[in-house]
């Protein structure tokens, strides 16, 4: 027997609300299977598991909220029991038809879902059970709501959105307050952020280095490339920047890896987390796996994909985990320099300031050029300022010959 706890999808997540079970007692898990959909301050996120086992019991009822770390699912070893009878997926299963001996806890029983099954019925509107229940409470016909979930399924937040739209319509000309961040406790979210950054600042002896980098060459390459591309295929500056960072990190395992139990494990493979702040609050750090192999268009495709997933609430747990280093990007407006706090167990984080036009000396001549300040916060237990400075120097050199960033790297043998 083992239990699966409410996972953390980021430093600012304190609790999650269960909106859908996609497994039921008796189901045998396959690797990477999505078992539940959890609503957080970042929207709905799918929990995928890479565990072997048979579902013994779902410990959290639909619509219930649990703190990170609270057990939500109990699994038993496949060898322990062979009593699992797979259900016919086309028949909705009521809790009463669950095999005897597969008892659910009382609070989960009343709302036990038939995962996946209802979607296949003609004329049946796919909706998560929690959304369905809430719509009934509010007296909203499901047909009036646009579903943003898988297969157009209606989720809790779609009802929220439809409510917000209705409010906006009836109050045209009135300035309404922006919708809150998913209805979750903002104080709890602050507390979760606080716990992570406090731990980082207490345990990790940070050192900080910054370098102003001229982006003239990258910008030229980008502009020339984008002129050939349709509007929706254009690249953002972030794409070549993240490529260059990932490639340089792969040669600096002292900045790319994880510190666990007083041991450091450096990596050559770069799983790069890209911090995205969400509209309405919350921070999401989806991971771009093997980022060192991507070229700029490939990186842009990843960024587009992650933004879409973040917006439509189908990011998976595994897509928010396993980062070896993080980049935090302030975007086009705001501050010139960002000295970020390292996200444990990682040992470095890059901060990208606002790209700006600035005086620049080129071949002894004063000119105006696009400039960005790239900052490195790194863990002094693992690396020294000298190594950090070498990293920034190599990154700068790579950004001065950006053609190579438009060519994918083949994995080294």
């Amino acid at each position: 027997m083992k239990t699966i706890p409410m996972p953390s999808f980021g430093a600012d997540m304190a609790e999650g609300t269960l909106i859908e079970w996609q497994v039921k007692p008796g189901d045998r898990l396959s690797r990477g299977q999505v078992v539940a959909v959890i609503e957080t301050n970042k929207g709905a996120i799918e929990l995928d598991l890479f565990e072997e086992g048979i579902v013994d019991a779902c410990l959290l009822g639909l619509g219930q909220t649990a703190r990170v770390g609270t057990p939500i699912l109990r699994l038993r070893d496949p060898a322990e029991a062979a009593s699992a009878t797979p259900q016919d997926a086309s028949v909705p299963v009521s809790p009463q038809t669950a095999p005897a001996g597969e008892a659910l806890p009382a609070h989960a029983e009343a709302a036990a879902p038939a995962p996946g099954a209802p979607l296949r019925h003609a004329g049946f509107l796919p909706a998560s059970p929690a959304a369905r229940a809430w719509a009934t409470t509010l007296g909203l016909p499901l047909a009036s709501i646009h579903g943003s979930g898988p297969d157009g399924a209606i989720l809790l937040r779609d009802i929220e959105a439809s409510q917000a739209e209705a409010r906006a319509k009836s109050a045209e000309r009135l300035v309404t307050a922006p919708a809150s961040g998913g209805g979750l406790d903002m104080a709890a979210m602050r507390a979760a952020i606080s716990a992570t950054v406090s731990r980082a600042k207490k345990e990790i002896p940070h050192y900080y280095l910054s370098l102003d980098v001229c982006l003239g060459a990258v910008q030229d390459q980008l502009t020339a490339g984008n002129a050939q591309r349709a509007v929706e295929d254009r690249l953002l500056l972030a794409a070549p920047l993240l490529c260059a960072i990932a490639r340089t990190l792969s040669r600096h395992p002292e900045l790319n890896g994880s510190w666990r139990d007083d041991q450091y494990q450096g990596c050559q493979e770069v799983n790069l987390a890209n911090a995205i702040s969400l509209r309405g609050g919350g921070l999401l750090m989806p991971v771009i796996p093997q980022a060192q192999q991507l070229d700029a268009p490939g990186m842009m495709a990843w960024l587009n994909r992650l933004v879409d997933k973040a917006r439509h609430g189908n990011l998976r747990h595994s897509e928010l985990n396993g980062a070896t280093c993080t980049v935090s990007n302030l975007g086009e407006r705001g501050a010139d320099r960002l000295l970020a706090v390292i996200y444990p167990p990682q040992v470095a984080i890059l901060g990208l300031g606002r790209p700006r036009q600035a005086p620049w000396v080129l071949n002894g001549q004063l000119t105006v050029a696009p400039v960005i300040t790239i900052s490195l916060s790194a863990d002094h237990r693992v690396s020294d300022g000298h190594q950090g400075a070498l990293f920034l120097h190599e990154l700068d050199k790579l950004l001065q010959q950006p053609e190579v960033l438009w060519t994918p790297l083949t994995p080294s043998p």
Partner: protein
Amino acid sequence: MDTTDALTLIQTELYRIAPELMGGELPLNEDLRDAADLDSMDFLRLVAAVSKQSQCIIPEADYPKILTLQDFASYLAQPR
């Protein structure tokens, strides 16, 4: 397309990206990126969506001409 149609089109696409702005009033002459808190990805998506709906190809070099709602609408409305 006249300026009013263009404005409606831009606002419709903007609300798709930032639904929380619906029902509020957006200033016509303020940089949209500030007024609507659009990051570069949001802005690129707005331009792509408007470009698709209006069949108007907007080169990157013209971005400075479409930074406010008013300018964006006038840009789409101009004869070409």
